[in-house]
């Protein structure tokens, strides 16, 4: 990625977690002035400028009940501000109408030509432009290569003619943009309220693991029950998400891994599109592609249970092929499951009883791995 783009991204996404950190002045023990400065900042910090006020976000929890029990069916962040903040600092959640970041509103505004956001580009437009530029670059490269191979006399006309396809491509792009903008769908009327403003249909859906991490580990998210309006505390949320309280409950296994990688500074997101449990990004999706695909495998102290839960070799081979095909490395993440867990444990004690071990798996061929 070019450095110019990178600077831009750093400005757009400065925080890797939705917590505000204020740095205290340096403390030098033998320097009384620094001591004073330090005490001043520590005590009066919240009242001086430059101090970042702690932010809290709000989410609502939806439950569905069947004949047997009720379970959590989704946790959503509704406010536009919170949605953007949670996406920008740590890349939490997924827009309910978008592929990942909540851009539905911007897309619709651009599509319907609603004034006000002319300067901004929807990510889909960015992608279209990037692809067009790439096509143009390939075209030019092909012509240049043809010129070098065919020789000088043919090279000259080829270089002249290469202007034309680029211009045509540009024109095509403009026409396509105009057509896109004009094409209104029949149901588009329902998107606008009586004042001509766009209705807010998108919300940010966060996974149970993300919700619990934001409430318990970072303590920046307040969750309210969508039905009753009651506040849901972190221990209460844990009870809702793992009602059976089994040591190998799927939620707790996934959460242990989630917490593990977040603690080590990775941006961890759901890997369902690659058939794995998680994807690890060095900083986040806009910066670079995910580098690792994580599959979670429970590891019991009882060997018989390990035999029962064992996946076959074909499965590993298939998953590795998907992950390897998109230039990622497969990590088999073994979670050591404790014998039993007690309901009276604090969340911290509960998490401490799990251990995480990783094995990186890569297909290696002597003929292809010789660099």
């Amino acid at each position, binding site marked *: 990625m070019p450095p110019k783009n990178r600077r831009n991204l750093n400005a757009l996404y400065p925080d890797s977690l939705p917590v505000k950190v204020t740095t205290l002045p340096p403390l030098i023990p033998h320097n009384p002035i620094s001591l004073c400065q330090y005490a001043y900042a520590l005590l009066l910090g919240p009242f001086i400028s430059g101090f970042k006020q702690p932010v809290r976000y709000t989410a609502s929890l939806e439950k569905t009940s069947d004949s047997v029990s009720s379970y959590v069916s989704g946790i959503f962040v509704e406010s536009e501000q919170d949605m953007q903040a949670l996406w920008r600092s740590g890349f939490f959640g997924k827009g309910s109408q978008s592929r990942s970041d909540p851009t539905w509103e911007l897309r619709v505004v651009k599509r319907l030509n609603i004034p006000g956001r002319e300067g901004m580009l929807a990510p889909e437009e960015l992608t279209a432009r990037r692809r067009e530029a790439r096509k143009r670059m390939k075209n030019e490269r092909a012509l240049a290569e043809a010129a070098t191979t065919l020789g000088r006399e043919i090279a000259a006309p080829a270089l002249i003619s290469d202007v034309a396809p680029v211009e045509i491509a540009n024109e095509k792009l403009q026409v396509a943009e105009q057509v896109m903008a004009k094409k209104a769908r029949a149901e588009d009327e329902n998107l606008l309220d009586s004042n001509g403003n766009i209705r807010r249909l998108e919300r940010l859906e966060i996974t149970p693991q993300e919700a619990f991490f934001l409430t318990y580990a970072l303590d920046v998210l307040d969750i309210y029950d969508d039905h009753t309006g009651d506040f849901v505390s972190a221990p209460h949320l844990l009870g809702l998400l793992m009602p059976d309280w089994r040591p190998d409950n799927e939620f707790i296994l996934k959460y242990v891994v989630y917490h593990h990688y977040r603690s080590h500074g990775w941006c961890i997101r759901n890997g369902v599109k690659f*058939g*794995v449990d998680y994807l690890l990004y060095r900083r986040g999706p806009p910066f670079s592609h995910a580098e690792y695909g994580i599959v979670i495998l429970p590891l019991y102290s009882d060997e018989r249970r390990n035999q029962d839960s064992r996946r076959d070799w074909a*499965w*590993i*081979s*298939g*998953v590795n*092929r*998907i992950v390897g095909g998109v230039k990622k490395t497969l990590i088999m993440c073994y979670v050591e499951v404790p014998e039993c867990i007690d309901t009276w444990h604090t969340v911290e004690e509960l998490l401490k009883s799990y251990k995480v071990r990783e094995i990186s798996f890569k297909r290696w061929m002597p003929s292809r791995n010789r660099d």
Partner: protein
Amino acid sequence: MDVQSENSTPSSIDVSFIDGEYLVFDLEAIKSLRNDHHISGILIGTLPQVPQQSVFLGLPLQLMPEEAALLVQKGIGRIIDEEASHGLLMSTDDDYDDSRRAQERIAEIEKPAGESRDGLLVYSTPAVSGLTDKVVRSESAVSSIYDTPRFHVYKYLHGKGFFLSPGLRFGSQFLGYPGDPLRYHSHYLVSGFAFDEEFPLIDLIGSGRLGTGVKKAWMVGACVPTGSRRRVNNAGEIEMVIKDEAEEDFASFCIEWAGFG
């Protein structure tokens, strides 16, 4: 196990069972398997002339357990227990007294050097040659394979004229080729399941992605149990219906990703 003589049925294909693997050593049998029974198998032997490569391989041909089982079930082939046959071969030599043979050998060696040629002693090794009896494994040795989901899907596609090869590379049980694998690319990544067997939904996503990414479809299939089957009626309810005799007793689906690859 019963002992049969070499030429029981002329067209019968002998599959050697060695250390848990099913191997075919006879070139004519391999041709027949490929041409008449569309079973391609995998050649696993090194070529003696070019031992430093693994692109072109030679005899023997390794068969999957399902292929061997199908040959037995259809009466095309028989499984030879090579270990037992070998034992049989050795035991026929039992009446030949070892000590007497040793004596003869010593006498042979101690003969005056008159029999040596160019100052070297020439020993003749008594070699056993000729037709020997083979121990054929009874059908019960492979019949346990008959009732596995893998065998059901193998037999179903094989019956439709498909060639199947191992699907380990693509995380499935088999790869389904519409004709000879030398002529066609495979169309399906094939996985057989037991009827009503559950599998993680994420596998459906992964296998669908993998299949579509290599221009194939992920095919899942299961043998419908005899007697009754479930069907979704017009009202969207699941009802049990008695399976029609003429109805196909195998249900299969193909999964692909749309707008991808």
